[in-house]
């Protein structure tokens, strides 16, 4: 990792942390200055994140998705484009940053604790399907962290916290409905991710599906969200029950991309390609 990358990485992470803290304080104390600070910090963080990913791309000479560090920096950028896009389009939803930023900061943390040296791009990654697969995976992640955030805030209010109402987020079931719509968008993106991965795998390994643990965990997180949609649409699971499943869904997403490769051997070892 070159110094310019390190600087940009730590500025990105620092600004996202500042944005999280400022948004949280803005929700608790209702001071506009905190909310504004949160928004400015997240926008500056996204600029720095863009710089970190771009610097890596230029220095490595390939799309920065070749190892765990690159995937997390680029993936965080894609996810934050979704998050920032939503909060800019709908300013009332800015408090969602409080739940959306911690998973992204965690992803950056996993990235920086992985080997960061620039290496050649594995031949396995030399495929046009790579961009489709990775971009849609992190677009889904961006939607799921927003869904998580809306559901978690909804649940927090149900357990006695009153910060949401004061923060200006949609009231009651509307917030949970927002979580549902984010899950729906993420579900579509995740479906594209799985389909593109299958086509790529057929060229790479000769089979579109090999029951590799990471593949199976992607399917599991997809099925968890499929269950969520069924329960919400047909079994009347609205409100708290539905929100609990939306929160749990992100746990499965984390397990499928960041967890399972530590637990069992997989061909998706992102530092072995």
């Amino acid at each position: 990792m070159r110094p310019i990358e390190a600087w940009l990485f730590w500025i990105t992470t620092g600004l996202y942390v500042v944005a999280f803290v400022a948004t949280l304080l803005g929700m608790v104390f209702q001071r506009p200055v905190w909310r504004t600070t949160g928004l400015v910090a997240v926008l500056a963080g996204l600029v720095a994140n863009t710089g970190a990913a771009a610097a890596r791309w230029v220095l490595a000479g390939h799309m920065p998705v070749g190892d765990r560090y690159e995937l997390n920096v680029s993936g965080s950028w894609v996810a934050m484009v979704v998050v920032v896009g939503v909060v800019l389009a709908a300013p009332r939803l800015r408090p969602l940053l409080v739940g959306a930023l911690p998973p992204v900061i965690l992803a950056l943390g996993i990235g920086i604790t992985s080997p960061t040296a620039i290496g050649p791009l594995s031949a396995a990654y030399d495929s046009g399907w790579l961009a489709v697969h990775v971009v849609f995976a992190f677009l889904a992640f961006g939607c799921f962290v927003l869904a998580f955030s809306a559901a978690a805030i909804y649940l927090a209010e149900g357990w006695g916290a009153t910060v949401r109402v004061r923060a200006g987020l949609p009231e009651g079931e509307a917030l949970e409905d927002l979580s549902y719509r984010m899950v729906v968008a993420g579900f579509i993106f995740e479906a594209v991710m799985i389909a593109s991965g299958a086509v790529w795998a057929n060229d790479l390994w000769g089979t579109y599906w090999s029951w590799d643990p990471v593949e199976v965990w992607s399917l599991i997180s997809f099925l968890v969200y499929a269950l969520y949609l069924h329960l919400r649409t047909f079994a009347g699971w609205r409100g708290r029950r539905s929100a609990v499943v939306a929160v749990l869904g992100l746990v499965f997403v984390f397990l499928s991309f960041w967890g399972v490769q530590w637990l069992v051997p997989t061909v998706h070892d992102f530092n072995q390609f």
Partner: protein
Amino acid sequence: MEPSPNIMRLFAPLVRALYSTWSTVAVVAAFTLLCVAGAMLPQVGAVSDSALDLWKSDHPVVTAVAEPLGLYEAFSSIPFMVLLAALAVNMVACTTRRAILSRKARGGAAVALGGSLVLHVGLLALLAGGAVTAGSSIDGRIVATEGQVIDLSREDQYLDLRRGVWADGALPGYALGVESSRPVSDGGVSTAVESVLAVAEPGAETVSRPLGVNRPVRLEGVVLTHADWGFSPLLTVVSPAGEVLVDAYVALLSVHGGGAGAYEDVVEAPGLPGTVRLRLLPDVRIQDGTAVSVSPEPRNPALEISVLAEDGTVVESGLAFLGSEAEVQGFNFAFGDLRRWTAVRVRADSGRFVVYAGFAIGLFGLLVRYAPAIWAAARSRRSTGNEVSA
């Protein structure tokens, strides 16, 4: 003949159960749980038999439950097949019901039902494609050294070969030769090997086709993908009595397959002084009296020959550079040539087309079913000052 009302009454609850939300939830949840078990437990074929046995002995309680349920082969176990069948039946029932309901629906409801119907048809196509793959595919692996020709129609030429339950006996009728293998590098570092295959169909002209990582060779009814590569030194072993015991290219395990970043393997043949371990050092330098390889490129290759005792300890070692010989335990080991081997996965699978169609149909259905909801939310936010409607 019309079914009697009593029979209809008898079957009505069953039919309702088939398409009920709760049966869907139960089947999908059970399927998900089985997937979790299959993803977390080591699976037969994915790890070596010895590693699996070691894992089982280290986890006796888990094994006591998992073994009878077939969870070490979770994705071909009977519970898994039963759940897949249940999922298929449930999906057929749901799809049929949606088809009936969509005829009566109007407006937005008709779009949503139509999208849901298309989505479920796509999911059924995915299941059907998976069934075709499992039932009719041929999946084999061959290893060929440069210059070697393999007849794909001969079963004994495959390192391993699996056939679907209703796959017919015929194997692809091609002859395959590896003309050359050359490393592909990125920034001066080798990342893979690309091979040129000579492909011949019976009675047809031989054609050269490049095969590399992510660059499969597609032939009629069969796809060849690059699976692995390694080195094949030409080894000649002559006994102290002058008898030639071995004279062949030995395909050493790849760096991944051999572990510890080494190209090595063991040779056992009648007359040899025990087990002989071969280890290729592609770019050898002598540092402090020890031979080490400084790069994976075969710039100065040498073959380390070690005779092993029964307990695996080294009895005696020798080093033979390319074109030279080494004496070990009185035997003459000659390193005559160095070539590369290529492992090719040979796969005939018509199910993949059905699966791809399933993906396309399912994604289209997803968009039709859910895009209006997302669009409505976005429009609502714009028109009512960021309000999100339920």
